[in-house]
């Protein structure tokens, strides 16, 4: 079922960036190793400002590894990662966060023994301005957080933690948001809230989104453009509305 990537088509569609500027994130020939094994193989893709891109693929195909590499959490990478045209390979995660990359990891990873408010304040570390005020739009997106401000992060339910994790990444108003399986193990009602929130920040605030998912529908409704990943390589890509559902589904588990 593997087919070579249609690069011509990709370039054509990818150039449909909204304001005609260059890509926000450009990854070329990314290779990531875990110990001795190569997990991500020669990955190249682009994200343009305001675009929502989805990286699809089943468990263990290298999606999470790719995000970690983008965030600078993995040391053994080769290839080029450019953010706003500038290579960022050699910068640590905190520099990348301050440059405007927000990250919502798999499993949320909120700070369990900090309060919700403190979790959000920590999120402000990446903010360019020095003010330590949690912007109002956060409570607008996730109203539930306001009532939980003094609770410990570890005491929240999974769905609430996911919202907190997204909010924590958003308080610093990043240019690019990396989301790693935000629907995993979350109740449907909250998934809908999360989906709405992500759509809003993309449409209203112009934040680019890179979403890693294994569930088709969620990806389809959120993303403008998709990449399909299998065994560490991209095997398919295209605008979401032109997505060949059958073929893509064949590569996903459900």
């Amino acid at each position, binding site marked *: 079922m593997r087919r070579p990537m249609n690069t011509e088509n990709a370039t054509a569609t990818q150039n449909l960036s909204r304001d005609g500027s260059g890509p926000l994130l450009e990854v070329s020939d990314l290779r990531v190793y875990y110990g*001795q*094994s190569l997990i991500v*193989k020669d990955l190249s893709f682009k994200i343009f400002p305001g675009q929502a891109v989805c990286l699809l693929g089943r468990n263990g195909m290298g999606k999470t590894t790719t995000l970690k590499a983008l965030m600078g959490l993995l040391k053994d990478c080769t290839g080029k990662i450019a953010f706003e045209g500038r290579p960022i390979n050699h910068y640590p995660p905190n520099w990348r966060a301050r440059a405007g990359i927000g990250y919502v990891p798999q499993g949320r990873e909120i700070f369990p023994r900090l309060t919700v408010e403190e979790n959000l304040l920590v999120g402000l570390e990446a903010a360019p301005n020095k003010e330590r005020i949690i912007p109002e739009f956060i409570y607008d997106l996730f109203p539930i957080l306001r009532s939980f401000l003094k609770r410990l992060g570890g005491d929240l339910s999974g769905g609430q933690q996911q919202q907190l994790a997204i909010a924590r990444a958003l308080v610093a108003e990043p240019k690019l948001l990396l989301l790693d399986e935000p629907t995993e193990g979350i109740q449907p009602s909250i998934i809908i809230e999360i989906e709405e929130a992500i759509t809003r920040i993309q449409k209203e605030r112009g934040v680019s989104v890179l979403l890693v998912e294994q569930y088709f529908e969620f990806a389809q409704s959120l993303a403008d453009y998709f990449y399909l990943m299998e*065994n*560490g390589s991209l095997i398919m890509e295209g605008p979401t509305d032109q997505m060949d559902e059958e073929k893509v589904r064949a590569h996903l588990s459900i």
Partner: protein
Amino acid sequence: MKLVHPPRADHEVAVPAAERDPSPSRKLLWEAGILVLLVLALIFVAPTVLSGFRLNLLGRFLALSIVALGIDLIWGYTGMLSLGHGVFFALGGYALGMHLKLQLPEGQIPEFFSLYGVTELPWFWYPFYSFPFTAVAVVLIPALVAAALGYLVVRNRIRGVYFSILTQATTIIFFNFFNGQQRLINGTNGLTNFQTLFGLDVNSSEMRFAVYVTTVVAVVLAYLLCRWLTSGLFGRILVAIRDDEPRVRFSGYDPTGFKVLVFAVSAALAGIAGALFTLQTGIISPNAMAVPFSIEMVIWVAVGGRASLVGAVLGALLVNFAKSLLSENFPEIWLFFQGGLFLLVVLVLPDGLVGWVRTQGRQLWVTVQLWRRRLANTSPA
């Protein structure tokens, strides 16, 4: 049962040739050969080359290398860093020291007792009149103390640095106890001024040489014991405990027993080392239980290379000779060098000398292979 062959992964890593061991039996033969040669060299060549003083030092350091083997067994292989081996070392030393102090005419008691007005030999001294008892005690007392302590600590799954800190606290307990009990064991001064063993003068050159040879033999035996313990299934379990102790439990093993046994064996080795060291230096005192000495022992192993028995012996010899020479030449500032050495080893040579030689050797091997292959390719067929 149906056999299933999974397909090979696409991104399979080629296993370098160096990772595959050469034939085990041939390796064993080489090892035995080298060992025999070394022993012969130590017994017949070293005495002719070295002065009496240096030979005595070599003998002492060889005794210390037995402790290093024990430390390597528990730290290098099992992952338990003991900062309390000085205690076991001293217990072995005291056991033999008591026997040596009892080489007296009937009715006399060691002279130091008179300092404190003690006229009757304390009860626990009596068994040490017997050499067989002493020989057993040198091994067993440290082993039993270690087993008891190890059981108490390990049973509660106290691991890693907590284990280290507790063993360090143990040194303080024993140090204070031995230091404070003048009337029983001569306190700070320890046991010294030994005269005879088996009726022979311990300071005569024949006796010294005999002790030296005994030490060489003891090192070899200790090496073989550790080799045996670490090579079989038992050794695999030790490594497994070091790498992932909880997993070992799920494999059906209770790590407590293994750890206690290894800790006790290691303590017994320290006891033997302490006895041999005491015989050669002529003194055993609570100072051997002071905190720094136990840490130094660990450093020997770190310098030589953890999880390498050869490294442990080598490390003990090298560090001690270096310490001896440095403190002779720079008596006022050699601590700078010692401290620097610790830093250097931890930061630059995390796998010790043996580890360094291994990686360098492997690289060299790979380079040579590549070079040979290239030669073969370019030469006309």
